[in-house]
């Protein structure tokens, strides 16, 4: 068993557990996007970063893949974490404003403006569809191509391969293909409708 402290709370979990699993076991919420239970770790969206203290030094790490270590102190909501999280949400909003998931994250974590030039992309490159296809459906029909800004989820030569059984799992799991956020009319717009119009109580984690 490994003992550590998360947000001031003493935590005892089995070796090999990730920080995300440990935190959730103890009822501490950490936002995620590219992580889904049952799929392999991808560590790409960086939304789940937490601050890890060892001695007087600290660093940010992706909780979804960081294995628990004895004696570390973890803060899931420090100023440094909040600043990073908001910036990542803002970057996602700038590229993919029509994702309801991302707009909700913005509301939940207090993103109130988009300071970057907006685009209207329909993919967050979170890789959920790629992993669900390969790992759950034994499909391997879709994957990533190209790199950097040109990276895309695609099929070989943009043609539906035989491996695709049109099961729809990729669409089911996609955080962008779902019902678009209805609050956004123009690319680059911030919704925040849930907060401003619907007068929902501020989320506990809003900073």
């Amino acid at each position, binding site marked *: 068993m490994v003992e550590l402290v998360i947000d001031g709370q003493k935590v005892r979990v089995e070796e090999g557990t990730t920080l995300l699993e440990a935190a959730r076991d103890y009822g501490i919420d950490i936002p995620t996007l590219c992580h889904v239970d049952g799929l392999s770790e991808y*560590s*790409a969206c960086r939304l789940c970063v937490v601050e890890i203290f060892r001695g007087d030094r600290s660093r940010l790490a992706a909780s979804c893949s960081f294995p628990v270590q004895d004696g570390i102190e973890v803060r899931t909501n420090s100023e440094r974490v909040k600043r990073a999280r908001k910036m990542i949400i803002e970057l996602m909003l700038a590229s993919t404003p029509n994702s309801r998931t991302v707009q909700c994250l913005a509301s939940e974590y207090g993103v109130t403006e988009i300071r970057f030039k907006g685009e209207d992309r329909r993919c967050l490159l979170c890789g959920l569809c790629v992993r669900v296809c390969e790992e759950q459906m034994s499909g391997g029909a879709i994957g990533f191509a190209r790199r*950097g800004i040109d990276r895309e989820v695609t099929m070989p030569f943009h043609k539906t391969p035989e491996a695709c059984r049109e099961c729809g799992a990729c669409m089911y799991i996609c955080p962008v293909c779902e019902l678009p956020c209805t609050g956004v009319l123009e690319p680059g717009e911030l919704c925040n409708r849930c907060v401003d119009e619907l007068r929902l109580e501020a989320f506990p984690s809003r900073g």
Partner: protein
Amino acid sequence: MAKAEGLMEFISETVEENGAERSRLTAVLHEVQKRYNYLPEQALRRVAELMDIPLIDVYGVATFFTSFSLEPKGVHIVTVCMGTACHVRNSEGLLTEISRYLGIKAGETTADMLFTLETVNCVGACAMGPVMVVDGKYHGGMNASMVAKVMQKYERAEAEKRTDWKLTSPAALDDYRKMVVSARPTSTGIFLCSGTGCCATGSDDLYEALVGSARRAGLDGELTIGRTGCRGFCERGPILTVKPDNTFYQKVSAEDADEVVRATAAGEIVDRLLYVDQVTGERLTRQEEIPFYAKQNRLLLGANEELDPADMECYIAAGGYSAMTKALFEMEPEDIISEVEKAGLRGRGGGGFPTARKWIECRRANSPDGVKYVLCNADEGDPGAFMDRSLLEGNPHCVLEGMIIGAKAIGASNGYVYVRNEYPLAVANVTKAIEKARSMGLLGEDILGSGFSFDVGVSRGGGAFVCGESTALMASIEGRVGEPREKYIHTAIKGLNVRPTNLNNVETWANVPIVINGGSEKYASIGTENSKGTKIFSLVGKISNTGLVEVPMGMTLREIIFDIGGGVPNGKAFKAVQTGGPSGGCIPEDLLDTPVDFDRLTDVGSMMGSGGMIVMDEDTCMVDVARYFLEFLCDESCGKCTPCREGLKHMMLILDDISKGEGSLKQLELLEELAEVVSDTSLCGLGQTAPNPVLSTIRYFNDEYREHIEQGKCRAGVCKSLVTYAIDEATCNGCTLCARRCPTSAITGEKKEPHKIDISLCEKCGICYEVCESDAVRRV
């Protein structure tokens, strides 16, 4: 069995060809003797059977004549003529020396079955006596002192021919080294750099020309024309040195070959090809007199100019693989690691992580099937750096030797050199080195009979900067996309193929044999408290002497740039030096006394990196530099994680705006904020360090950013949107040069009349500004 079958077939054929009459017996036996160097028993039985001659008769003939032997003989038959004429010229002394050299008496064969020593009563070459004959070739006028040279010719030929010939003990390696050393030409020689830089300026043609000139001058035996690895002073290429004086010629072309050969043979110097001191104007004869070389400590690179990278014998002759022998036979893994630790060796790939700590972690890690890997990172992707190319290309065996020592320390059985596909010569040289080392028993199964086995393969990259990152590199070797993964579980525990893997950079590996050979104490005497040894930098950009420089850690940037590099050319003012490549930062003039040391460079917001050192002058715009690196990194980001893919893109867009004069101070703040998050949250080293060029330029050259934003001004005149070109009518003498050079015909004007630039046509390429001899073109 295969050999016996072959023998029987050979005899059947021979008998058939010669006929089975008894008179053909000696002819048949001669052919068998010639083919096998002796008459095997089965052969004689078969001959008797086929020719229908009693076996005892065949046996009788075979034992009667001295030309036949029933004992196996060596591959080479050395025969010393004991005829009368030779006898009076001391053939006895010659025989004694050959006997001593081979360690056998006349009539015996060496244990390796290479040589049989025989005497003959006269070979009829009496005028040339004393004579020795090797495989039918006559060597006349021999004396005892000439024996070694003749024998070595055959030994070397044998060594090259036999790929299955292995060195199976340290003693065998020592013998081989002695043989190679004594066979090496000691006479005068011309040694030509064959690195990529010099090849680009015509080194290959020059080599052919020199060989041709030497042949025409009848000097091909005496004058060695050799090749060496990269010398580092690439801008002066092709470079060659004349030994033993070390006369240094630069910018030599094929047309100079005849003159160089003639002068060398005559012991003269070709003045016009010497290096001219930039300050004093004096012609300098020897390499060590040239300021570029004088202040360096070429611990690693020094070997490059002595060795032919394609010839393992050069490396062996220079003491190569002796550190490996020491590590394999005299040291326990813990001893090796402890030496490396005491030497204070830190990773030369950029991070400066203590090498021994990395090795210990990998040594302690468990592998499910016992397989561990040792890798060499030769994916030198920093634009403007070529230290690793030079080392791997110029001295590949040194890198291999380091890897073998590391493998022994770690307990690794396999390794790879991961090298950029853009470095074809490095790929070729390291591949050749591996094949040769393996064929000689210096790599592979049971190295030198030590019981330790380790083999290395070459894996080529495919043009991706991110593959210099350890996990991306390993993914690429595995045949996957070069995409990094989280390293919370270190690659030392789970790396290539999910096995414990140790990755070090080319330069780090090249340091290892030096540490083991010279000892940690000697090594640690070079450098600063926490940065030991030397570091190679690729000194490029706006600097008088461009090239690779190797200096002891702790030398200041100022010494490197001004004393070795000769400062900024054309009377321009120094502005900054960029170290660490796209992950590093720009250091301003007031910090030039910072010593090169892993920690000090990090303190000033840059990093050692793998060794790029790019000098910038007043004509360099720091906003543009930051933008350049970001553009590079956006291209090279794998695109997996959000901050690197999206964050770098937006950083670049902001810098784009600033460079066009469309930025705001608020954007500058956002740029800094974003940069910090990108470095805080990115998945791998590429994204984590990518903001460094931006943050360091904002830190040290904030006023330039502000000028772009507030005044729409680029003081260096680089940012095109902020610059216009105009011709000063009063100064223009109407020479028409600018008008003729302008690619868009934007400049008009009559001869000897002031010219004008049509702004609507001008593309701001700056050619007019560069060519104007009367400084009439203004950039505002």
